[in-house]
């Protein structure tokens, strides 16, 4: 187990005055200017250099110098004018040199905040701050190449604003939830039927290649190796040193070796969850937890959807209960659609749960107040058999919960129960914006007091402090 690098632990609770992030404008690390110039020059020399060499070496030097100056003349002002800062609880981002752009983001609407550090940025002590909004692929804010301390403090301030606290409030305290031991990650990733089969096939092909010296065998080995790289080596490197913790600001995930990431998913942002248990993992008693978060759209969905890559089954269910407070996913009564069937579904006042898959068991969990639409559908054959399917639609993501192939009347009762429970659960006061000032979600009172005591100009919120119960 690698110790977490310094700086990835909880930062000091009280930032010193010069660390004040709530006012002023900020920009990326100055190092980005020479790095960009270097990159442009290298690409230019590599692409155009061989042609220019025909005219003489001096030409190459001369043109490369011109490119260096040109790139510098572009990179310096675009770095200088690419600023961002906090204005009340909005984040204002300026960018562009010829086509100036200015975006103002209401932070109460953010869906998730990630700090990402690829290997090169780790060397230069830089980080990228990503703020995910619900508007899909194009709506994420990416602040690249920030100094790491700035990125950290910005993340804290952004989350504080999203929670409805002033930007100077300290970071919410967190308590450890789960640390993934490396042997378990390695073992669980290896111990899967497709991985084992492709390993054996790959070894057989390589043996055949060595014995018969038949190069055609490699044609089959290459796709196998690529598949293993994608589905075995990829997650292994991604989730090295995985650490999950809980705080009043939501779930915090830290992981990765070559690309360090820190994800924060605030409370109420998880739309649906699924627990995946491949065949051999059931013997080990471990599972994977994936979530639908409205911000993780498009290509980043596969990147960031995993809440727990590998965890004991009971830990997985504990996390689900933490993510959807006040509910108990394992207690929802499940009904199979017919005898000897692997697929079952159930609903209670808070959750819709469906289980499917004979070999790879997938448990999908949607809180009833987060359902978008409900559909009861029956194709021609299903109608002859008197069967129907209930689909529970959630925003795009890995989860697609459904009670498949139920008896038609039962399907309708499912639908009616979901509609009824959903109506009761969807009270307007249950929104999740500015979660720290609401009594419905578990807030951190000490932190709120610290924040309001520090900044008395902000209105105090004593009345919402006491829950009705």
């Amino acid at each position: 187990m690698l110790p977490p690098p310094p700086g990835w632990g909880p930062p000091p609770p009280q930032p010193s005055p010069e660390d004040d992030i709530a006012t002023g404008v900020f920009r990326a690390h100055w190092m980005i200017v020479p790095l960009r110039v270097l990159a442009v020059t290298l690409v230019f020399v590599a692409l155009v250099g061989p042609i220019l060499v025909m005219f003489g070496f001096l030409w190459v030097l001369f043109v490369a110098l011109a490119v260096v100056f040109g790139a510098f003349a572009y990179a310096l002002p675009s770095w200088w004018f690419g600023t961002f800062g906090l204005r009340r609880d909005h984040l204002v981002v300026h960018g562009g040199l010829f086509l100036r752009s200015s975006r103002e983001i209401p932070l109460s609407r953010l869906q998730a905040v990630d700090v990402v550090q690829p290997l090169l940025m780790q060397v230069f002590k830089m980080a990228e701050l990503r703020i995910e909004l619900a508007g899909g692929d194009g709506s994420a804010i990416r602040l690249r190449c920030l100094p790491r301390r700035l990125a950290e403090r910005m993340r804290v301030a952004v989350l504080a604003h999203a929670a409805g606290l002033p930007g100077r409030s300290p970071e919410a305290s967190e308590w450890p939830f789960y640390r993934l031991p490396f042997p378990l990650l390695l073992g669980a990733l290896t111990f899967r039927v497709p991985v084992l089969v492709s390993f054996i096939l790959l070894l057989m092909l390589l043996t055949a290649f060595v014995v018969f010296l038949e190069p055609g065998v490699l044609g089959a080995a290459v796709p196998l190796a690529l598949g293993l790289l994608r589905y075995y080596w990829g997650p292994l490197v991604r989730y090295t040193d995985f650490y999950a913790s809980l705080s009043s600001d939501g779930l915090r995930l830290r992981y990765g070796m070559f690309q360090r990431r820190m994800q924060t998913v605030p409370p109420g942002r998880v739309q649906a969850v699924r627990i995946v248990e491949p065949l051999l993992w059931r013997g080990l008693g471990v599972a994977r937890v994936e979530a639908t978060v409205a911000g993780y759209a498009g290509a980043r969905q596969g990147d960031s959807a995993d809440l727990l890559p590998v965890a004991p089954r009971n830990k997985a269910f504990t996390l689900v209960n933490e993510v959807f407070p006040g509910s108990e996913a394992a207690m929802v009564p499940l009904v199979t659609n017919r005898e000897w069937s692997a697929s079952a579904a159930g609903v209670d006042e808070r959750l819709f749960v469906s289980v499917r898959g004979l070999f790879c068991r997938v448990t999908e969990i949607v809180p009833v107040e987060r359902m978008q639409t409900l559909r009861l559908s029956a194709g021609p054959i299903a109608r002859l058999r008197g069967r129907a399917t209930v689909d529970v639609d959630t925003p795009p993501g890995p989860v697609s919960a459904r009670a498949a192939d139920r008896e038609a009347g039962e399907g309708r009762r499912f639908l009616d129960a979901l509609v009824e429970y959903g109506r009761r659960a969807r009270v307007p006061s249950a929104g999740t914006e500015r979660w720290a000032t609401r009594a419905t979600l578990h807030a951190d009172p000490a932190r709120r007091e610290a924040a309001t005591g520090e900044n008395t100009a902000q209105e105090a919120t004593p009345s919402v402090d006491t829950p009705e119960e």
Partner: protein
Amino acid sequence: METSEPPSETEAGASSAVRPRNEAFSAPEGRTWQRIPTALAWYRRLVTGAGCLAVGAAGGVLLLMWGHPLWAGAWLLAALATAGVLWFLAGLFQRSWGYVEASAELYMSYGVLVRQLVVVPYGRMQVVDVTADLLEQALGIATVRVRTAASTADTRVVGLPLADAVQLRDRLAERSESFSTGL
């Protein structure tokens, strides 16, 4: 279901025996479906008829040019038969359509081959808009499209008269505001 709602179990268990199968797609308790005028059927008949005619004519002419008059006739006949079937199905589709504005949700039911019942809570509606293409404008009908954060469901109310569509949009937009609970 037995633990979550004991009373409904006995009541629904008894009723499911007497209910015919289509009852699963009936309107919610105490309400009846709002039906769609026949202009929708004519819209679909015109669209499918024009499509069949174009495909039939093009295929027939090509086959004639290649010197297969018999096949050309068969092709035309097949196109006409398809148009006839679609003509009939368009009527069924129009009659299958219904919607209900319940107290907190919009119910929609449609489909001839694949029967669907779609429920959209007002609080989940993000955008409500009215669209009408050229043919719809000529027939005086419009489509009310409801968008939620989920992209899997196609939630539209088709074939409403334009005035009704505009009123429905305004009602839905107003309710989506008053029932709003965020994402």
